[in-house]
Each structure stands twice: as structure tokens, then as C-alpha cells.
């Protein structure tokens, strides 16, 4: 066995320990700060991604419903837009081609911009599916063949005006769960039914 000299087994002095501890604290502090910043960034990005995803999914679902509105293989005269107001629109499609609209199925969907609390919902029969909430802006517009925005009164568009609608517009701004800019979307969807 090698003899250990007293000098080698002396250990660290108090100054060395303090310096070591200070350096360790410094490194740990820097790491913690970096981790915290990364965590905050991750959370912010997650919230941003979530709100953008919510807005995009809402738009996709809206486009999906408007695209198929008026599907009428039986030729019974299904009206694509049975109702159209500034805050809600009803879309109808005879999806099974039996010539009858089943109000409890997806053959009739309603999109509603609600105010208290502010949200965008998709209604099917008695089911209400909140698509986006909270929303800073949620508006529906109806354009005719020339792109003119048809004025919507309190009772919504008349039957004659609904027959003129060629495109349905949804303006949506979804607020994120953390402070930040809303996710803004504009969908202008042409009805797939010839005038």
C-alpha cells in the first residue's frame, strides 16, 4: 500500500469550498434560467400552436359543411342555406340521397357565433360542439355571384337573397390561452350548387 502524505489527504480549504459552491451556484443558476426560459418558450409555442390549430380545424370543418350544402341527388329542391344571419348559418345537404332531411343528423348543421361566452359552435340536432373559444371576432358574410356582400338584417337574409348567395364567409379570431395575438382566419367558401 502506498503511503498517503499528509499534504495529499488534507482536503479542501474553506475558501476552495466557497469558490466551488459559488461556481456551482452560478452554473446551476444559468441552467435554471435557461431551462425556465425554454419552458416558457415551449409553453408559449404550445399555446400558439394550439390556438392556430383550433382556428384551422374550425375553418376546415366550416369549409367541409359549406362545400356539401345543397347536395341533392334526389332533386327534391334541398335549399343549401335554409337560414342565414350575421351570427348563424344553417346548412342543409341530403347526404344519403333519400330526398328527406334528417334534422337529427349531419344533414342539417348550424354554425353559431355566440357572444356569452364568446365562442363558435357547430350544432347538429340537439348536440352543440364548441369549435373555438374564446373568440375575439366571429362573423358570417354572404356574397352573391358578383362578390357583393349581401346586407343581413336582424331576421337574416330573405329567401330571395339566400338564393343569390354564392359564397359564405367566416371571419374568425380565436384568442390564445396565454397573452398573445389571436389566431385570425378568413374562409370564403363557394357553394357547390349551381345557381
Amino acid at each position: 500500500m502506498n503511503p498517503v502524505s499528509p499534504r495529499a489527504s488534507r482536503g479542501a480549504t474553506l475558501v476552495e469550498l466557497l469558490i466551488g459552491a459559488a461556481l456551482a451556484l452560478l452554473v446551476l443558476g444559468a441552467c435554471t434560467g435557461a431551462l425556465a426560459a425554454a419552458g416558457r418558450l415551449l409553453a408559449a409555442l404550445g399555446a400558439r400552436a394550439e390556438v392556430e390549430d383550433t382556428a384551422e380545424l374550425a375553418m376546415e370543418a366550416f369549409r367541409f359543411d359549406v362545400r356539401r350544402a345543397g347536395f341533392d341527388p334526389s332533386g327534391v329542391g334541398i335549399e343549401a342555406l335554409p337560414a342565414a344571419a350575421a351570427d348563424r348559418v344553417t346548412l342543409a345537404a341530403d347526404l344519403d340521397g333519400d330526398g328527406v332531411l334528417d334534422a337529427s343528423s349531419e344533414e342539417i348543421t348550424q354554425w353559431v357565433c355566440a357572444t356569452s361566452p364568446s365562442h363558435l359552435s357547430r350544432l347538429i340536432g340537439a348536440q352543440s360542439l364548441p369549435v373555438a373559444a374564446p373568440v375575439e371576432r366571429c362573423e358570417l358574410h354572404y356574397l352573391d355571384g358578383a362578390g357583393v356582400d349581401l346586407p343581413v338584417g336582424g331576421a337574416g337574409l330573405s329567401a330571395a337573397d339566400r338564393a343569390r348567395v354564392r359564397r359564405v364567409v367566416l371571419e374568425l379570431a380565436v384568442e390564445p390561452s396565454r397573452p398573445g395575438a389571436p389566431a385570425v382566419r378568413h374562409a370564403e367558401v363557394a357553394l357547390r350548387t349551381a345557381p
Partner: protein
Amino acid sequence: MTPRHLDRGSALPAALLVVTVAAVAAASLATLARTEVLLSRNRVSAVRALSAADGCVASIVSALPAGWGFDALLRGPDGAGGTADDGATIAPSGCAAAFRPAPDPAHALLNVEATAGEGRRALDAVVARAAEPAIPALLWLSEAATLGNVAGSLILSGADPVRPGAPRAPMAAPDDPALLDAWLAAHTGRVAVQAPAAAPFRAPAPPLAELATRARAAGALPGGTLVPAGTPPLALTLISGDLAIDSAASGRGLLFVDGLLDIAGTFEFSGVVVASAGIRVASGARLEIAGAVWLGNGATLTVDGDVHVAADGAALDAADGLLGLPRRAVVGGMRDAS
């Protein structure tokens, strides 16, 4: 004194543990990111495929000839029902399509399946006939080569008093609309397109053979419906062979000349004038049409005099009342079939 092996500490296991935990965390993050990327890619593929399917439907429907129903289409290329090619149709690359009967016999169902990248979408479209008769063009040609030289003057007025928001195009043909544009540009000064007017567009040839058959079946008169002066009767007229007009004449309704319409005098007509072999307007002669002119395959349009064709939806509607005019195929609704 402490034995040396007890002095070793736990730095290595601790470091290994930290590295393992970090590696697992990094792998989890990478997997999450990869999943998000794949989801986004799938979504992009799906949207691209949907756009491709949409485009496919639009392309197929716009290429369908104007007509009255979809029976011929549903019978397929062999023209016989109940065979394997029923409903078969030519589709643009990247998509497959087939027609099938709809519950309403006035409609047809078009099923389209399109692929774009790794995405695939299928759509069912209801195909109907347009509510508006014929096509929105003043001259409906079976081929752009029909247009000959214009030594006189040809005025095409697209403004339709009945449909003020939808001016007519000066002409339509199955060929590339650029040919029609080029012809108009080459005849600037002798051919005038009065605004408002839509741009020339591509349209399959008018179905003149079936129109003649329908006119005969509807009891079209063989002549005598044109008058030299006064208000002419609204009539469905089918002339077998050429029709020469040497003095003043006018008419209303639908005039089908199964030959050459040769005008050496003054001829005014309100409605649709069909000339299977073409129209010749001699120098000093005048032709005024409120409605539309349809020319057959190989027909020629020779204008040495003055010709004015003006849009008139009411005149077309009146002709349509005499004999249902062919109508364009249009999409009457769509649903996702994926």
C-alpha cells in the same frame, strides 16, 4: 484511514442517470415533433388531394357537352346500357372518375377519386343541367376554324338587358380560347366587341344533330315563318337545305337552317339562329340577331356586309319555350366520399 475504494463516490452513475434521463426527454421531444410534422404533412396532403378532386370534378363537368339529360353519359362510350363501361368517363391525370345514375333521373352522380402526393380524397358530385338555356355566348361555334375573314363589319354586343350582371361572351368554341382571342385581335376594326362582355371561352360544340331531331319531333315548320315586315310570329322553323334571303325578312323563335344561311338582303331575327353549314352575308346586306347564333361542324361565317349580334335573354327564353334548348352541365352539389 478510509479505504480508497470507499472514496470513489457516485459521480459516474449519477452522470449516466442524468444522460439517460436527458436522452429519454430528447427522444420524447423528437418523437412529438416528428408526430406533429407527420400530422401537418398528412393535413397538407389531404388538402392537396381535395383540391385535386375539386379540380377534377370541375374539369370533367366543364368538358361535358351541352344537352338535355345524362342518358348517353350513363350508357358509357359503347352507347349501350347494362354493360361494363356504363358511366365510364375520361378523367384528367391524377384522378379516376365514373358516372352513375342519381335517384333523380334528371341528375347524374359523378364519383371522383383523386390522389396528390400521399393524399387521397374521393368526392360525390351531383351533376345537373343549368337553369339557363344554352351557353352564355353570342356565337357558339363547333370549331374555331369556322371563323373566316370579315370584309364587312361584325358587332357583338354582350350586354343582356334580362341578365345585366352576366354579360355574354362574344364567342365560344371547343378549341383553345386563345385562338378566338387571336381571331378577334386580327380583325380589330372590322369586328367590334361592345362592352360589357365576358371573355371568349371553351365550350363543347352545340349538339345540332340532336337539336334537329328534337325540332322535327316537336313539329317544326319547314318555312313560311319569316315575314317581310311587321311583327313576325314566334315559331320553330327547320329548313332542310340552304336558306337564301334576298330582300327584307324577319323572324322570332328558333330558326334551324340545315345548310347555308345566305343573306343578300336584310334579315332581322330574335331568338336562336342555327346554321349547320354556315352563314354568308353579302356585301351591302345586313343581319341583325337578338339572341345567339350557333354554327355546325365545318360551317363558315363569311361577313362581307354588316352583322350585329346582341345578347337578349328574353329572346333565348322565348326560343327555349318553343323547344327546350340544350343546357350546360353544372355541379349541383357535392359531398365527401372519402
